[in-house]
């Protein structure tokens, strides 16, 4: 098991290496080259020329690559050209909002997708199954921004039951501790902490549904197909023959085995969530990393674009690593080789 985890870690290291080579070459294309990596303190005049030479004019490209690696390893991603703040710190201001939204979306997708998929599998080729399958196809192919507009028009503007945009009602002043609004509101010592929590939850609903729609469709379909194949296995039949109720068969015996391909699918959805968050966050004015990166692109704020790509890509690689380890734990077969 340990060796397997180590092997996964090695995989991770290789992907990370490829990623840094990519971002390193990308940084060379920026108008100011690598010089943005230099830690500029308050005064522009006093950052030393030696430092610049070190980063920009080192004789060999390898030297400058190692310089670059040591900078990013210590969290020096450079400074935003527009705001002057550290890119690394800014990322951690915006990223929790994206994580919170993605969690909401995944929760929505799993919470609805698993039961729907199982239900469809049990009713294979009957009308509920056909209805679910065709609806997921619609969900999968729907343009996300159009779907968001539609939901906002209906739920927020016509019925008035959900907010239009942002993470929390603006009347609540919550100081960021963890960056996760749902946690920050609970640990806040403001008198309106409870209302603030519900406001944050309330604001999460529509964006999470929008972002979770495609994963929902994918999870429903993969649950259905994987469940169908598991349900036709011999051990299910023998379990039924022993008189175990169908609920027990599904939840205790079938689902655990059906879950493995679902976890893999889920892993693939992480990058879908990140790209989806670019759109969703812009539509809902959700102050997350996706919107942050998008605004940086509009501003040609190269250090932020560079740092954002690096940080988000590292995050995606890291989640894949964790999901691989998770699926090894669920599936003993994978541990063997």
């Amino acid at each position, binding site marked *: 098991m340990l060796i397997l985890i180590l092997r996964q870690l090695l995989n991770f290291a290789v992907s990370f290496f490829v990623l840094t080579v990519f971002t390193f070459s990308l940084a060379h294309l920026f108008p100011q080259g690598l010089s943005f990596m230099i830690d500029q*303190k*308050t*005064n*522009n*005049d006093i950052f030393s020329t030696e430092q610049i030479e070190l980063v920009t004019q080192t004789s060999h490209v390898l030297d400058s690559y190692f310089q670059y690696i040591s900078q990013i390893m210590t969290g020096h991603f450079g400074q935003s050209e*527009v*705001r*002057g703040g550290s890119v690394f710190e800014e990322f951690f*201001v915006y990223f929790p909002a994206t994580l919170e939204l993605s969690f909401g979306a995944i929760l*929505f997708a799993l*919470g*609805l997708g698993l*039961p*729907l998929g*199982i*239900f469809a599998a*049990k*009713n294979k080729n009957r009308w*509920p199954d056909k209805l679910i399958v065709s609806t997921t196809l619609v969900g999968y192919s729907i343009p996300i921004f159009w779907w968001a507009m539609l939901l*906002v028009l209906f739920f*927020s*503007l016509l019925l*008035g*039951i*959900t*907010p*239009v*945009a*942002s993470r929390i*009602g*603006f*009347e*609540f*002043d919550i*100081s960021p501790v963890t960056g996760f609004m749902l946690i920050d509101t609970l640990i806040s010592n403001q008198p*309106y902490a409870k*209302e603030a929590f*519900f*406001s944050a*939850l*309330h604001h999460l*609903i529509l964006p999470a549904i929008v972002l979770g729609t495609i994963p929902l469709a994918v999870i429903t379909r993969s649950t259905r197909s994987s469940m169908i194949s598991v349900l036709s296995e011999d051990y299910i039949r023998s379990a039924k023959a022993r008189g175990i109720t*169908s*609920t027990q068969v599904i939840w205790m015996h079938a689902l655990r085995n059906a879950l493995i391909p679902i976890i893999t699918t889920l892993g693939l959805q992480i990058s879908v969530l990140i790209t989806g968050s670019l759109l969703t966050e812009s*539509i809902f*004015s959700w*102050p997350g990393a996706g*919107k*942050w990166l998008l*605004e940086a692109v*509009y*501003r*040609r*704020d190269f250090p932020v674009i560079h740092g954002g790509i690096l940080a988000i890509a590292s995050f995606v690689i890291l989640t894949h690593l964790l999901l691989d380890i998770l699926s090894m734990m669920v599936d003993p077969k994978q541990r063997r080789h």
Partner: protein
Amino acid sequence: MKNLRFFIFAIVSSNIILLGCNDERASAVRDNVLVYCSEASPQSFNPQLVTSGTTFDASSRQIYNRLVEFKPGSSHITSSLATRWDISASGKEYIFYLRRNVQFQSTDKFQPTRPFNADDVLFSFQRQWKTNHPFHRVSSLGFRYFESMGLGELIKDIVKLDDYRVKFILNNPDAPFLATLAMDFTSILSAEYAHQLILKDDLASIDTQPVGTGPFQLTRYQADAFIRYKAHPEYWKGKEQLEGLVFAITPDASLRFARLIAGECDLMAKPLPIHIKSAADYPELITLSEPGSNVSYLAMNTNKPPFDNPKVRLALNYAINKKALLKIVYNDTALIAKNPIPPNMWSYNENTLDIEFSLTKAKALLDSVGLENGFKMDLWAMPVQRTYNPNAIKMAELIQQDLNKLNIETEIISYEFGTFLEKIKDGEHQTALLGWIGDNGDPDNFFTSLLSCAAVNSGNNASFWCDKEFDQLITEAGRKSNIKTRTQLYIQAQQKFSQAMPWVPIAHARQYILAHKRIKNFKLTPTDGMFFSGVTLEPVNTQVIQSSDENR
């Protein structure tokens, strides 16, 4: 039937989340917090560094005070941090008597130990003026307003007579000087705070964590998301009734409108013409409107060929169909421009040449300079909506079509607003759609800021047009105090402008704000500023909002 249970469970559980939040109480907190849906993030929190209205709205207009200020809703000068002032007979010396017991805001970083005094005035001006001042080079943005108004050359000395008296000595009389001191970039910062920052070696905080004497103080800011203020408890005019003020930064105009209807905002900036129309269907909304003191124009970079040739510039003036632009972009709410200043401002010259849309004349002009086969040019358009131009990109596209008829190939270039302005300042463009909102009701504010030779250096003069005679006229006009003489000079200057045509003047727009009825005492200013001092809110009444939904 058992499997149906899953299905029902799934549907019900997702509905519980929806309904559980639905009975959110209309909290009393909302009654003291005003939410303003603004259109863009500020470039900085220091009004000295920038010229954009969004930054002034977020900084000088809430956080800071000036020596003198404009009366709310007008361009009349009234006392503020200076209680009174004496002007010498020569018009070159101004003595200001400062208000006592004015407290600066206390923040996490700074607790003031003394009230506002003459040192703060000196600090605020010297920082912009003296190149060797320790704070002069803290920001790379530079002091564009100070420079483009030529204040560095105008001010001879600023003397502290005692703690509560400051004397400004000018090199020459300057009629709009008092109005200049009421403008955003002359806001008064705390010298004591600056001194503490030097000790902490944290100079940049002066622009990012502002400390002023104004009605609201900054508590939290997240770029592209929100700005939060709270009432300054020791504000010298008395604490504001509003406990909190929030700028919800919402660049998308339709989203701003949606948030306004949903009651998430009390006030929205820069509605599109279509929003103004549909606002009539919502009884809880009010539309505030005033003729604006602004101009929208196409600046042609006279440093770059072919725009160094006045004939080409004139040709473009003929080639652009302004009537169509006004109809499509402004929904016919604006006036056609031909001068740099709007017609509601004194010294407007009615007699300058009215340039009617005429492709034949444009073609003839281009033929006469050998450009009958057209040329390639870039056209810079900002991505944000401004009062003077609700949709620059669309305007650029229309201009592109117009020019295409003369075989002029136009490439439209757009950047985020802050970057856009920076690049314009560096002169990267050939032509750019820009605009200006007058900040002090004086024509000088348009001429000197946008078309003087001083403004070429600071980058505000985007056509880089520096005409000695024109410059002479407007400098002269700035020095005289007799309004008749000044009017004469400005009329001549407009004539000169009209002959050289460094711009295609396009429109003077009307300004609009949409607000909820619960907002009281809010006034639009001719300078298009958002001042929230003195504004009050009526308690949220959800009943009213819901019944209006049914009426729709």
